[in-house]
Structure formats: C-alpha cells, structure tokens
C-alpha cells in the first residue's frame, strides 16, 4: 500500500513535532502546519494529501472554520478532528460539517493510526469510484 499522505494541523508545537515523528516512524508521510491558514496553503500546494488531523481549538481560524473551508475547496480530503478539551459537541459539529471522525487528546497513537488508515481507505475508495466513473464516461464517449 502506498504511504498515506497526512497533514497535521495543531498550534501546540511540541505536541505536533513529537506526534509527527511518531507517525513518520509508523510509515506515514506526514507534513505539519501550525494553523488553519497554513493548512489551506499546504493543501493548495500539495494535492496529494489524503487525510488531515485537525485540532479543534486553535488561535485565529479555529478547527470548525478551517474544516468548513477545507470541505468547500477540497471535498474529497478526509478530516479527523482532534479535540484538546472534551468539547464533544464541537467535535460532533465537525462531524456534521463533514469530518470523518473525532479523537480526544491525549489519544493512543495506535488508535490514531488506525483512524488515519480507515480515513485513507475511505478516501482512496472514493477516488477509485470517481476514477471509474470518469473511465466509464470516457470509454462510453469512445464507444
């Protein structure tokens, strides 16, 4: 399986750094940014990103706003919400807007990896279906 392309968005730098290292060690292709705006820029530049782990509580653009923007511009990218405090409601709001799932901080790394893999699988299946549809359309046109 191809390495999953993952984007981490969190304002807590030490947390981000460590988790980046740990995820990289688990065969993931991780890039990390510190706020919502940077995340959007990174997504523009790097279209291969499949899964985003997004902190709910961030200064400036918060998690939900960022999520809305992402879903508007890159609807196929899967987002996992990471909530620092137990604002389950916020996380659930996130799910309504289109997040794949949410996790509470601090979370077990293995659980996180599993969630990321699930998200990636979903995303890839989506992509495949879209590809198939396009293929059909193209082949149909050819016939």
């Amino acid at each position: 399986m191809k390495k999953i392309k993952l984007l981490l968005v969190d304002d807590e730098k030490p947390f981000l750094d460590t988790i980046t290292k740990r995820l990289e060690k688990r065969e993931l292709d991780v890039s990390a940014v510190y706020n919502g705006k940077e995340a959007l820029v990174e997504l523009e530049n790097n279209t291969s990103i499949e899964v985003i782990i997004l902190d709910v509580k961030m200064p400036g653009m918060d998690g939900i706003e960022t999520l809305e923007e992402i879903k508007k511009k890159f609807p196929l990218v899967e987002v996992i919400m990471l909530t620092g405090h137990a604002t389950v409601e916020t996380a659930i709001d996130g799910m309504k807007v289109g997040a794949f799932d949410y996790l509470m901080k601090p979370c077990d790394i293995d659980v996180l990896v599993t969630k990321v893999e699930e998200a990636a699988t979903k995303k890839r299946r989506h992509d495949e279906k879209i590809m198939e549809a396009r293929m059909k359309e193209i082949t149909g046109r050819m016939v």
Partner: protein
Amino acid sequence: MEASAEDRNAFYHVLSRKITALILVVSFFPLILTTGILFYRFNQTYTEKIQAHISELVQKHTQNIDSFLSEKLGNIRYLAQQFDGTQQASDIFLQKNLKLLKTEYGDVFTDLGLVNENGIQFEYEGPFRFKNADYSGAEWFLKAMGKPFYISDVFAGLRGHPHFIIAVKVKSNGSDYILRSTINFGAFNSLVENIQIGKTGLAFLVNSKGELQTQTRVGLKESIISSMLDRSCYKNNETIFAKKQDASGNKFLCVTSMLKNIDWIMVFRQDIKDAFHDLWKIQILTLVIFILCCVAILAVAFVLPRNIVKLISKSDKKSEVMNKQVVESGKLATIGELAAGIAHEINNPVAIMVEEAGWIEDLLEEEDLKECENLNEFTRALRQINTQGKRCKEITHKLLSFARKTDSTVNDVQVNDAIREIVSLSAQMARYNKVIIETSLDESIPYIRISPSELQQVILNFFNNAIDAMEKTGGTIKVETKVSKIEKNHVVILIEDNGPGIPKDNLNRIFDPFFTTKAVGKGTGLGLSICYGIIQKMGGTIDVHSQVGVGTKFRIWIPFQDAIIEKKRLRKN
C-alpha cells in the same frame, strides 16, 4: 452578621413605627375632622331647634293668654255697654249675664259686680256676699277709675285667695260706674301651667313688679324671679331667649315674652341639662363611638405594622436564603468554569508528555538500544508515564464533563448515570477517609425530566456530608435507586451511611438554612437547605431517618410522571 442583624432589627423597628404613624395620621385626621364637624354642626342645629321650639311654645302661650284676656275683657266690655245704668234692673242684669257667661265659658267668670264712683259695690252676683263691699281704698279701683278698662294683678283681696279682676268703666246718667268681674284663677292658671317641657321646664307669669301672677309647682324664690327679669330687654313683644346661671351655679334657660293686654311677662324656665337632654344623649353616643373608633384605630395601628413587619422579615430571611443559594450555585458554576479551564490547560501538557513518552517507547524499539541493560526499567517507566497520563486524562475529562453541566437546564436524565458520575468523583475523597461507596442501582428506573447538574449537586452534597461525618471512623455509604413502592410514579434514591448519626434535637433542623454542626468557617449550613430547595423544585420530597451510633438514611423521591407523559406524547408524534 450580628451587626447587620441589629441594623435590620432597627430598620424593622423604624418601619413598623412609620407604618403606625401613617395609619394613625391617615385614620385620625379624617375621623377627628368628620366627627368634629358633624358634632359641631349637629350641636348647633339641635340647639337652634330646641331654642326655636321653646321660643315658639312660649310665644304661642303668650298669645293664648293674650287672647284669653282680651276675650274676657271684650265680654265684660260688651256687658258694660249693655248696662243702661238703672239701679233697679241691675241685679237682674248681673244675674242674667253671669248665668249667660257661665253657660258660654264655663267656670271662668266667678262673679260680676257693679261699683259706683265711691267704691261701693252696690250690686253683686256671685258665690260670695260682697254686696255693698267698699273698694274705695283698693288699688284696682283707683286704677280702674282712671282708665276705660283695667285688668288687675293677681291679689288676695277680700276673699283671701288669689284672683284678678277685669274692670270696665261705665258712664251712665252722668255718673261713673265700674263693672267688674273676677276671673277664676284656677282656669287662668291652667293656661300657664300647661306649659311643661321635660322635668324642670315650667312657665309662670310675672307682673311689672316681679310678683308671681300664677301658681307654680315648684316654689320659686323672689330673688330667682327678679334675677330672670331684665326689663330693659322687653321691646316690641319679642320673645327673648337667654341662658343664665342661678346662685347655686345651676345653668338654666330663660325665655321671656311680654303680654300685650297687660303689663305682665310670661317667663319660661328650664334647666339646660334638662332642655338639652336628648342632645347630650347623642353627644355621649357620638363620644362613645368616637372612642371605640380610636381604640380600633390604635389597635390596628399597633398590631398591623407588627404583623406586616413580621411578614417582611420572614420574606427577607427567605430571600436572603435564596440569595445565598444563588450565590452558592453561582459559586459552583464559577468553580466549574475554573475547573474546566484548568482541566483544559493541564490536558495539553499531559498530551505532550504522553506523546513524548510514546516517542521514547518508539525509539526503544530500535535495534541498538535493545541491548541496553536497563531496557526493562525504561519500558516500565514509560508505561507508568503512559498510565499516569491516562489517569490525568480521565480526571480532567471528568472534571470537564462535570463543570460543563453546572446549569439548571432540564433534561431527560438517567438518574443512575448521574449518580455514577458523582460516585466516581467522590470515590477518591472517600478513599482518603476510609469510606467505601457502594451502589445498588436499579437499571429499570425510567428517565426523569430534571436538571442533571442539580441532581448531582444534591447527591454530591449528601456524599460530602456523609464523608465528613465518617472522617475519623471510616464507614460505608450505600446508594440505592429504585422505583418507589410508597409513592406512585416516583423514583426513590436512598443514601445510607453507618456514621455517627444525627442527634434527635438536630434532626428536624438539618434542612434549616444556616444550621450547621461543623466548626466555624467549615460549613455554611446551606448545603441541605439548598438540596431541600432543589428537590422541592423538582416536585420531590426528602426525608431522613437517623439513629445515633447506627447511621443516617436519606430518602429522596422524585416524580417521573411528567417524563412518562412527555415520552408518550413524543412517541405518538
């Protein structure tokens, strides 16, 4: 606290006094004004009426006497004109006419007589033997000779008992005669004596010299009579009304009126006390009513404010307790928010720590470190960090979830869940005090529509109290939930401990606000009172059983009928 209580007492005192003063002013002012005006007016009117009545009575009688006298005078004058002066026929004339007069007027005319200019009564007809009586020296004769007619004062005369004479001068054959008639004094006297008002009212006639002309029932002293007469006042036949005082200080009314035909005065005398007897009766009645009113007002003015102030102080106390409760719940909310903030702040570093530990764990997997002799220790330490980190996470999560719910929004609540949450929160503190919390929760109890955080506040309070009570000895708290068998449609929560129990004296005061047995500064005495308030708000009840040395059992009933109805309604929809 005590100072403020004193202030408050002073305030209540002032308030009560103000209300009293207000009531007094507002009630007394119109009362006195109304009573005063009515009293004065009535008095005046009644007095005027009495005066008018008496004056009129006297006037009427005066007129009566006047007309009586003028009528009698007229009779005699008529007779006098009839008299032809012949001496021979005079005895027959008198006899005939006296008979006529007696048949016409009854016993008014006693006798008739003819007196010649020498004062000798040469002809007489009547019950006495006065023929040839000599009147030449009599006062009435002298006066009568000088006038065409004359009415004498009352005098004893020859017959020795009071009478008076009507004398008319007759000119006949060049010589003067006088036709005289005696008026029956009894008949005349009754005219005056008939005037009787009240007990002391009496009337009499007085001549110009102040001599009594009629008989009175009461003997009157000359001085009294003369004191009543003030001759200068009598003009134009007016009736004069006066209030006088006799020598013994007795006040009396004196009404006088002059007769037209004769120089006599009609006097009516009545004690003021007697004359105004009715008025005084009414005055006394008014006074009694007024005094009763005053007493009633005074009673109201002093009792009502006291009651009002009592009510106010009661409601003040209540609102104070309410305020305290609000403050208390506000405090809880603040603490909750604070806890949430702290929990959040701690959560992040803990997350980082756990991640770092995880990272080290990851690194330890690498080959070159696997040979390290302390590898096992490292692994163990990291696992410990991880475990403790997770514990931190649990605590902060619990704190957060509790803090989040310190509001009174009503929800469908599973009581058991709420209790479990509190049990896990209190468990730590309980363990320090060697207290074990046992739960026996009936999972079949329905949802209840209440505020979950309030219910938790209540249960937490009971736990804290129980733990405080068993601080030294340790013990067990049993929590039980079930559907009540006693109360229909109620969930019952039993919280039972085996602590020292509550003494009987304190037992019925534990729900009173500010009642506490804890040391000063340790307890507000509000906890159970707030709990009681909350449970009452939910429509539930609390009761308590306690035995010293055995333990205490609280039972809380909360109704769930509403919740059921609500659910049924929802299902139908």
